[in-house]
């Protein structure tokens, strides 16, 4: 079990957003989270990475309670986060953005980590000297993903990675994530509005409504095409 979320509550000021979210994710699993706007999907990821403090509940990552840890400690422990809107450092070059993602771990040097990622993201390799802020939306999304992967996370949190992205880059992202999942055993939690994207990647899907997980769909249900029917009823 890489992630165990138990009765998690979070709020913006006095406005509660998460009202007791509980779920578990196994090593190497890919889990999708679906829900209407304002139901708490992004807030859930922000709480998992530590951008928002949990007001109650517990987050255990690889068996350790990280609920009170600042975000940098969670990242160093192996939680990678690709936020909605990408949050590229606009004045840094693409290469510097990638270097920012490096987290010293094991024998990997910064140079090795960045070179490995450059090989996985050939589209970025020709843009290394460009300022991050000058890239297209799709290129920025690739960069945001590549930057996080430079830190070799064990768990990847992805917030709406296809939002406003051209289809060819969405295909690239699916291919890269599928490869990381299949061959590197990366665990992924992805928040998405695109059913095609989430179906292509996820082994199971959690439906979130009003800050709680209301339903779970298994891999079998997903492959049977029941996701769209289920969503039609609940989301």
């Amino acid at each position: 079990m890489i992630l165990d979320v138990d009765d998690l509550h979070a709020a913006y000021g006095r406005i509660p957003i998460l009202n007791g979210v509980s779920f578990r994710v196994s090593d190497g699993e890919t889990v999708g989270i679906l829900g209407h706007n304002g139901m708490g999907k992004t807030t859930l990821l922000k709480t998992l990475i530590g951008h928002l403090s949990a007001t109650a509940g517990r987050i255990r990552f690889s068996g350790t309670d990280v609920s009170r840890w600042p975000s940098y400690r969670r990242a160093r422990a192996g939680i990678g986060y690709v936020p909605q809107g990408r949050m590229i450092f606009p004045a840094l070059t693409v290469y510097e953005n990638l270097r920012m993602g490096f987290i010293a771990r094991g024998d990997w040097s910064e140079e090795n980590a960045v070179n490995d990622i450059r090989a996985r993201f050939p589209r970025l390799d020709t843009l290394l000297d460009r300022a991050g802020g000058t890239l297209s939306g799709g290129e920025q999304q690739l960069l945001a993903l590549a930057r996080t992967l430079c830190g070799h996370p064990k768990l990847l949190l992805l917030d709406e990675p296809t939002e406003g992205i051209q289809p060819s880059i969405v295909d690239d992202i699916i291919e890269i994530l599928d490869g990381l999942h299949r061959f590197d055993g990366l665990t992924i939690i992805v928040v998405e509005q695109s059913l095609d994207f989430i179906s292509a990647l996820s082994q199971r899907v959690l439906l979130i409504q009003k800050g709680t997980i209301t339903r779970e769909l298994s891999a079998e249900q997903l492959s049977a095409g029941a996701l769209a029917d289920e969503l039609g009823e609940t989301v």
Partner: protein
Amino acid sequence: MAFASIVGLEVVYAVAMLILVSLGLAIVFGMMRVINLAHGEFMVMGGYAATLAVHHGINFWLAIIVVPPIIVGAIGVVIERTIIRFLYGRMFETMLATWGLSLFLVGLMTVIFGDDTEGVPMSLPGLHIGLYQESGYNLFVIGFSVFLVGAVYAFLRYTRLGLLARATMQNAPMAGALGTNTSGVYAATFALGAALAGLAGGIIAPIAGVVPTTGGSYIGQAFITVLGGGASALAGVVSAAILFGVVDQAATFATNAVFGEVALLLAAIVLIRLLPNGITGRFFRRSL
């Protein structure tokens, strides 16, 4: 020809002094957006650190170049941890707090050192050009300022800590989510700014002497230069210092030092009127 050379050196010296005085503030205000009204007192502390070091028998060059940034950088860490870190993003409160800090430091230094001017003796041979002579120490100040700009540029551009500092100042939450201890980076960056202010104070001490109340005379020049330079901390300070230094010295040679100061202020007003975001708001936008 000799006169023109001397005038040229004096202009370059004025530019170098503006860079020296402003570089620490360029980091603290230009990068971190912290309005540090105690910047001048940081310089004065650097001056006192140099003075005390020389009086205790430490080599002159170590006393003015090494001791002040270490002492004032360490004080900067303490001030950042105890005062500044609670005020990031709160401009008005930061101004009030650093203004109070400025008054406190002036009072503290007056109690400790008195209000007599302390000097740092130095002797460097001058440079003879025709019938004229340029102070050897002025030439050192020019050379050292060039070195310092290069060193700060190299630090910010090529070191891991420089990268972390630039990224953290652009988007601290994202830097944190990538594993950067942003609180530590803020403390280190503030300490760098304080150390540069202390270094400037140490370098200037042999020329101007040190007295607790002299900080006020530096802070105006520093803020005008940093604001005139705009968003890019380093390129902004260098470009604004060149503009204001040339205007100041040209007016000084044409009239006197008082009109030189007036011309500098007028140039700053015109610049801000024409380029509200400073020089690097229009030019050299991608520079550091």
